[in-house]
């Protein structure tokens, strides 16, 4: 699998993401600076990593969404390429119109840095096939603006078309209000694009890939990608 992480000014979880991809695939991903106008040939996966692109000023992800490279990412996705956006990356994908909805301030108006549990809503996508159906896994969340919002029609469409990827749940798997710390609509932690090839999520599974650090709950996501995107 050939993966590239896109680095914007202010991106800060690109190293974490590179470690996770390396662990799952045995290969170090490329790092691409946002000012590049094109993606490398033969790319399988483009990753928008977490952080504070442009300082999170204005709205999280708004300025990065207009970077030169985002046009290339959009075209890559249109051609069927896989794109993963985590945290700030998810915010960028929404601001760029590649995923529906928006991420508002956390309902508590505070930055939330803590563990959360997520339920895998379908385990038949390139991002989730290593998870057993209905799997619940733990990940770090670290964001100030993770409160997913979309209008009712959009939310209904996401649910109806199976495009909700992950929901905040209790460790036992229940989507309760207490499990939904940032106030996201319908406990949504992550969503897919219509063709299931673009995924955005707020928490950081890349921080749970190493038994020496904090367990390997997040590893199946990266292993799924490695399995799905075996390429020349």
């Amino acid at each position, binding site marked *: 699998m050939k993966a590239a992480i896109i680095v914007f000014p202010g991106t800060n979880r690109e190293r974490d993401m590179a470690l996770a991809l390396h662990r799952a695939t045995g290969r170090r991903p490329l790092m691409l600076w946002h000012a590049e106008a094109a993606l490398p040939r033969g790319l399988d996966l483009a990753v928008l990593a977490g952080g504070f692109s442009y300082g999170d000023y204005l709205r999280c992800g708004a300025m990065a969404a207009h970077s030169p490279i985002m046009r290339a990412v959009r075209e890559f996705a249109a051609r069927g390429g896989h794109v993963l956006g985590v945290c700030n990356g998810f915010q960028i994908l929404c601001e760029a119109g590649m995923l529906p909805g928006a991420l508002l301030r956390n309902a508590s108006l505070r930055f939330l840095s803590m563990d959360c549990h997520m339920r895998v809503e379908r385990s038949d996508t390139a991002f989730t096939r290593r998870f057993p159906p209905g799997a619940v896994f733990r990940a770090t969340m670290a964001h100030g603006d993770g409160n997913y919002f979309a209008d009712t029609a959009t939310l209904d469409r996401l649910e109806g078309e199976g495009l909700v990827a992950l929901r905040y749940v209790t460790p036992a798997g229940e989507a309760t209000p207490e499990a939904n710390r940032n106030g996201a609509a319908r406990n949504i932690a992550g969503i897919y694009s219509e063709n299931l090839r673009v995924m955005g999520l707020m928490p950081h599974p890349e921080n749970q890939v190493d038994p020496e*650090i904090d367990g390997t709950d997040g590893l199946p996501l990266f292993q799924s990608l490695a399995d799905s995107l075996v390429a020349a």
Partner: protein
Amino acid sequence: MTDAPSPLPSDRAAQLAAEFGLKPDEYERVLAILGRAPSLTELGIFSVMWSEHCSYKSSRVWLRELPTKAPWVIQGPGENAGVIAIGEGLAAVFKMESHNHPSFIEPYQGAATGVGGILRDVFTMGARPVANLNALRFGDPKLPLTRRILDGVVRGIGGYGNCVGVPTVGGEVNFHPAYNGNPLVNAMTVGIARADRIFYARATGVGNPVVYVGSKTGRDGIHGATMASAEFSADSEEKRPTVQIGDPFSEKLLIEACMELMETDAIVAIQDMGAAGLTSSSVEMAGKGGMGIELDLDAVPQRESGMTAYEMMLSESQERMLMILKPGREAEAERIFRKWELDFAVIGRLTDSGRIVIRHQGRVEADIPLAPLESEAPLYRRPTAETPKPPVLDAASVPDPVGIPAALERLVACPDLCSRRWIWDQYDSMVGGQTAKRPGAADAAVVRIEDHARALALTTDCTPRYCAADPEEGGKQAVAEAWRNITAVGATPLAITDNMNFGNPEKPEIMGQFAAAVRGMAAACAALDFPVVSGNVSLYNETEGRAILPTPAIGGVGVLERVTQAVGLALPPGCELVLVGETRGWLGQSLWLREIAGREEGAPPPVDLAAERRNGEFVRARILAGAVRACHDCSDGGLLVAVAEMAMASGAGAVLEAPPAGLPPHAFWFGEDQGRYVLAVAEAAPLLAAARAAGVPAARLGRSTAEGALVLPDGRSISVASLRAAHEATLPALMEGG
């Protein structure tokens, strides 16, 4: 071009010197050095360089007593940060710094810029910052002002640290009314560098370019005294705040750009622009190298129009650095800084004149010989008055008014012992993917070094109520507790940074506290092989004549060869519990005494440094031998609080054994004797035998269970879940309860 600065009229100069805080004899020295009256810019430079903050004039004579050497020390105090070797050719670079006053004026920005400043001190030496910690003291938690400051400070630390992507992995918080008008915000940064690639601030090479990088210069933070005097701000439409605003986004770019340039060999010397920005960075870099320096302020990137030389030299705008480059390397460096969208300007040259010469708009605004600026800087051995030693409190003379279970429930919920989760939940502690022990998980935070098995153990400690009662014992205890916390995760303590927060040094009793605290710290550093490699002094922490508690905050750094060796404090069920160290039931200055008996008195617990070292080395060896499942030191609240903290962290319970006869139970369970650890092990017997052989006091304390209750020797049982609920509720109720 006129090549001599225009002196101020002499009466005006003398009056301004006083306003800028120069004492009459200090001003006489300025006149002697220059041989004439100073220009406004020159006076500004002298006043900031000779301020307490930059010159350490009251504290220097005492700080010399601190041990600063060890075979692993690469750079002790005197540079931007301390540097120690941590094995495998790696170095840890770290320092702690205060932003107390700014955090009182504007808590969010004060704390945020404090984090930004200490980060720069570390990455300026070539180290990538890998962890932040913070030591905080606030006033009475019942006051709305305290809550407002706490809220702003925590948001500010998170706002800056989270954005730059450096995990905040630990810290400490105390409350006491002595901090009502004077909170303490001490921030520590730890970075990792290659030991053979440290960058220093020593400028060399006549003709080498002086380069300014980072954000533009504005009129931020120019000291209050000057701003109040309207003559120097002709266009003062509104009273300008002296508050500095942090821009963590620019800092992140500055870190990356500096790291990229440091991969080349273009840099001769580099220093961040901290307090007194351009002045202190240029004076110190040239001074350290025995050089002269010429600056052309027209080239300085400016955010505002019409700035004077005086304003530019004193501005404390954030996110700026000054570098000396090798000749001809400007273009290469400029390309890197432009890529990261930062300002870059060549603003001067090194000379062999030994003078700092500042030009602006065709005029020489300052021309000062550098050697006397440093060598003639004031140095005071201020009078000291010793704090009278309080009498030792006899534990048997203090009755227990509430019983053990009730006291425990109250203690774990009191502001000084309650869970800090509400705080650390706002700090990104995981970014970087290397945090193996995050806040609350262990006595020290544990952060692995990327691409290595090796890890750092990090902590900050100080118990101000001990320091107030007996500054010498308190200083000793602060160092010992940091050493103990690092030991308790299995790491080898290597060195400390300190942040000396005290009141007005012109008062003999305050200077006495300072001198005694240093004496205690020095004794502990020497006995524990735990030298001081960097630090910061913050004096005049007083409001309306009332000083804060003396607070020598210690930041400790240790190393583990393998991150997998680290143990946490969460108690697993099915273990035996062993108490290492001697228990005498010391209630003087304990939290039990304050919270339960309502008394703040007595001598603080003494630290027996030989026992401290012996006990700690024993515990560390057992941990590294893989024999320990969990470990926690006994500190605030004593033994039963330590056991409760271990139980609350896992949800397990414990059945505890009877205390030795002769001690009142409340003194046994809540006394704060030093040098003690609680260990959870599979089997107590081998540990006890080894302790006996090593001459280390150790006793079986009980066993841990899967039932979530602490069962006391008399059979009374305390629910761990309800303890935890009380422990967790305090800060949220205080801060969100409305």
